[in-house]
């Protein structure tokens, strides 16, 4: 993997949860990880909500900071540029959904291109606007055009949220494989909820990332999780 990993995809495809898990995995392996919250699209369930938790685990989160962090304004931190030019270790980009979100990425395209990168396309076939090949091809083309960068691999992330059943995964995984074929892209790795990742790892070709959900509605948070996120 390149130093810079960029996570793009359709709005609601699971980019943020996927990238959070990836960042924590890298940090757990002793890597220095910078996570750039470039999501200017969605107003809730953003990686900035778990900043404290991430910092505790050695993931440096780059967000607009201050009061603006709670706004829905398309603000990008000047620290992104600094991170791109001088940070050591991994740099992960959590990009906003669709071509709208990818537009923000386009501002850094030249610099990113010079340094080498891997851009990943998170794909969930259970989302209504990426449910068939034609839709997925359009989505990918739009994102590439807006970001002025090229996707090199797919992250297979078929799920129905917290209610995902094993059979949903077994039905969804081959759907993503078909889409990958149509896109002429490899599946770089597969994201599976931690409830089923051990069970399914043997059935899946290529690497698997177990996914724990961090950005949950309040009634689904596990005891203590809230306080881990924000001691205040």
């Amino acid at each position: 993997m390149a130093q810079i990993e960029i996570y793009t995809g359709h709005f609601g495809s699971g980019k943020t949860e996927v990238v959070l898990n990836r960042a924590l995995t890298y940090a757990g392996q002793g890597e220095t990880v910078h996570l750039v919250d470039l999501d200017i699209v969605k107003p809730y369930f953003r990686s900035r909500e778990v900043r404290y938790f991430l910092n505790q685990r050695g993931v440096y989160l780059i967000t607009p900071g201050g009061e603006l962090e709670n706004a829905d304004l398309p603000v990008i931190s000047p620290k992104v540029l600094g991170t791109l030019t001088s940070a050591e270790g991994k740099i992960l980009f959590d990009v906003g959904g669709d071509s709208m979100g990818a537009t923000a990425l386009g501002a850094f395209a030249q610099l990113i291109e010079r340094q080498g990168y891997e851009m990943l396309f998170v794909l969930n076939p259970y989302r209504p606007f990426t449910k068939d090949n034609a839709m997925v091809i359009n989505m990918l083309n739009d994102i590439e055009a807006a970001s002025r960068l090229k996707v090199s691999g797919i992250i297979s992330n078929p799920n129905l949220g917290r209610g995902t059943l094993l059979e949903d995964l077994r039905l969804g995984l081959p759907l993503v494989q078909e889409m990958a074929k149509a896109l002429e892209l490899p599946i770089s790795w597969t994201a599976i909820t931690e409830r089923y990742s051990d069970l399914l790892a043997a059935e899946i070709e290529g690497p698997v990332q177990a996914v724990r959900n961090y950005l949950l509605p309040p009634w689904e948070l596990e005891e203590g999780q809230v306080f881990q996120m924000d001691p205040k």
Partner: protein
Amino acid sequence: MAKVLMKGNEALGEAAIRAGCRYFFGYPITPQNEIPQYLAKRLPEVGGVFLQAESEIAAINMVYGAAGSGARVMTSSSSPGISLKQEGITYIAGAELPCVIVNMQRGGPGLGSIQPAQSDYFQAVKGGGHGDYKLLVLAPATIQEMVDMMGKAFDLADEYRNPVMILGDGILGQMMEGVEFPAEETALTLAEKPWATTGAKGRKPNLINSLFLDPVELEQHNHHLQRKYDRMAKEVLWENYRTDDAEVVLVGYGSSARIAKAAVDLARAHGIKAGLFRPITLFPFPKAALQEACKQANHVLTVEMSMGQLVEDVRYNLEFKVPVHFYGRSGGMVPTTRAVLEEIIRWAHSGEEDKA
């Protein structure tokens, strides 16, 4: 159709289309933007009209016009935007027109925050704009319920010729859940609207109006409206959760009800007989059902994302027979399950010192 994964706002948009809604007029505001965004894409595909107006005030008056000509029409906004729409809403109520209005509430007062809240309860259930009128107010708590309720919302609007409000909050709009839609093939039978302004060829002209210069006539109109609101009482909907033997009954709607439900389960695990009463219609308020759910309760506790609004209606509808307490967070802060559990424990054990 198989399940899909959707945001609450998107699911609501799709459900409106399935319910035969073909006209949407709105103006963007967080946290409900995915509704207009979704409908901007989908409505033209089904031959409908999506229009982003120049303001909320323009949008609600376009709803007024479309409803007057008999269309299935919807608008959506969030708290400050709904405040802007109040003039149009009272006109629509006065002229007795059917439409659906979605409010994905956010923190207030004023411009407030973009985070979730439930502090527009009074505005929703007590009228909101000027004059004596009521909205039918539905409060779903899951994305599936939001979808299932959409057809009902439009049907109720048609039946009573009255605006129906779907009162959600930012969490319900923004969160994602697996959801199933009713089959697309089901042909909709929409109510006849002989009162609509559809062109008066061969019949007497229809008039859509909320102006009554003659006070006698306007008072009669008010009595007529009031009788209609009384008739709505039969539409009450609610959910009881573990209330049968509950000594502490929680009351909450929408997202707060889901937090309260999780707290009830934790309380039960602590050996406390707790339950949840969830009003699904906020107007009409399910009074008899609330009284029934609370008849063995020593304490009632409302859980809200406000400074205390629903609590007033709960006290009133329980006729002050049971002590009713309030726990809430506001401004976009959300109650934690743990904090609600602590409140339950507090009231469950209150009075024990006196007995000892």
